[in-house]
């Protein structure tokens, strides 16, 4: 659900307006953060390839650092995709439903998604307890930096899915439904 697309034609109270403003900033921040992570990933892997090819010596920490960034990119990207309802799904049968049926599908599919994300949050919490204070082998960054991406990402996705279930499913404000649409995947 892209919160920034909420139409502004209706009269809203100042507190709702402020909330929307804050959400807008958070959304922009999220997108800039994930863009920055991609740029960092590209830079690190490219520098390493260049150094290895030109000077025959690479950066030992580069692969690990890039992988940790990558895990963050995956989960932050998954948040963006969840907001825009862009996760791949087979809508061959469910696309026939309109109105109340469509709302039912949204609530049902979101509940399933929330359940499995709940499993992940639980499992990652246990893993983070287990790995507290354990550094990554090369960079020495806490190993939990990686688990944190999945933990935070799953929690935020759960929040978004609950929000969408309420706004789209229960309140039925389908005019706000994001168009989803996936980019250059296949």
């Amino acid at each position, binding site marked *: 659900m892209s919160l920034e697309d909420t139409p502004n034609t209706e009269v809203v109270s100042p507190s709702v307006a402020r909330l929307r403003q804050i959400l807008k900033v958070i959304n922009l921040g999220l*997108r*800039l953060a*994930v*863009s920055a992570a*991609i*740029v960092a*990933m*590209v830079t690190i*892997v*490219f520098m390493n*390839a260049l150094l290895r*090819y030109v000077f025959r010596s690479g950066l030992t920490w580069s692969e690990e650092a*890039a*992988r940790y960034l*990558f*895990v963050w*990119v*995956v*989960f*932050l*990207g*998954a*948040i*963006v*995709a969840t907001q*825009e309802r*862009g*996760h*791949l*799904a*087979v*809508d*061959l*049968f*469910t696309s026939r439903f309109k109105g109340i049926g469509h709302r039912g*599908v949204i609530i*049902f*599919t979101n509940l*399933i*998604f929330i*359940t*499995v*994300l709940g*499993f*992940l949050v*639980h*499992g*990652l919490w*246990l*893993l983070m307890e*287990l790995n507290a204070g354990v550094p990554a082998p090369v960079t020495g960054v806490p190993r939990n930096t*990686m*688990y944190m*991406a*999945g933990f935070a990402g799953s929690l935020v996705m759960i929040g978004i899915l609950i929000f969408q279930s309420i706004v789209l499913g229960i309140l039925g404000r389908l005019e706000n439904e994001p168009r989803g649409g*996936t*980019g*250059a*995947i*296949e």
Partner: protein
Amino acid sequence: MIWVFLGVLFLFLFAGVPVAAAMLVAASVVLASLGLFDTQVLAENIINGANNFALMAIPFFILTGEIMNAGGVSRRIVDFASAFVGHIRGGLGYVTVITGIIFAGISGSAVADTAALGAILIPMMVAKGYKKDKATALVGATGIIGTVIPPSIPMILFGVISGVSVTGLFMSGLVPGLIMGLGLMTLWRITTNREHMETLPKASRSERLSAFKSSFWALLLPMIIIVGLRGGVFTPTEAGVVAAVYAFIISLFYRELTIPKVIEVLISTAKTTGVVLFLAAAAMVSAYAITIAQIPQELSMTLMGLTTNPTVMMLLIMAFLFLVGCVMDMTPAILIFAPVLLPVVNGLGIDPIYFGVMMVINLSVGLITPPVGTVLYVACGISKLSIVQLSKAIWPYFTFYFGLLLMMAIFPPIIMVPGQLLR
């Protein structure tokens, strides 16, 4: 156990649950029925799924494709092809296929290639009096070469999830991709033989030279990728990063890449990466579950009971995947079925690289097959045709691909011989 896994998976898939979530549910049910369900196992596997250097090639190639389109690289490649074959009768059709092959050598996505080709070439062809449905059909049929000629995102997914060399898959996709392109050009000539179409004015020698000069650096990119991989200079992931940086640098020279465009490109890359790799990471969890439950062995036993002839098995599997491709997107189809089918294939001595290339071509053709054909929808979106109109126009190409697949299933050397020479 295989029926438990597939039953649960498809039940939730057809109920409209996102594929990644459905895979996690199916994995959980399989593990639970073995008494092994543990959220830590799910968590560990999904993180390890994403924590993979080889998969990083995917965002890099997505980024390359996005930069190619935003930075004016695509446009120059079209101009280059137009200058050389635009004046021939039906020339823009050949321009489409040649451009498509070059795009395929830069990006790894059929959808991205179709979108790029369609946005530029469909309006051009319509303006010159080409029939809109035929033009759009050709663009769609050309777009799917994008996943066959290296780089290829589905091949990276196949390679990583089934432990097959991605470079090997890439090299083996090159010749089949070129055969697809040549076939399309031949068909284009046959099907448009009696039509009235305007041609572009013949470019002079100096115009050709300047078109070549302005696209030279863009044309060099597919060469760099292929030669670099073939020579073992870099891994597929490094090829991806080199391609992205290279595309970025030449776009700077073309002066078409503004800062807002760059940010747009990055955000779009992030979103696509989130979709594909969250799904891939979830698939690693279900791959773990099916391994623990020995589902591939179970399937092997069942299928070997039917036949032990590799060719017959190949035809059976291909027919099955063809049906899968009709109702499912390519990414989930590969992630679900590659780990299940590969042990069967290995058991019969079928080369896994050959199988991977066949699977990718098969499911790519699924992208232009209704009802679920992503490329078909993208092409329709650009030309504003209905799916029915486009499906009617695309059938000659579809039939050709079907025949080609059949031939390659019966004569594996079509893929294997050039693949082994290039590997």
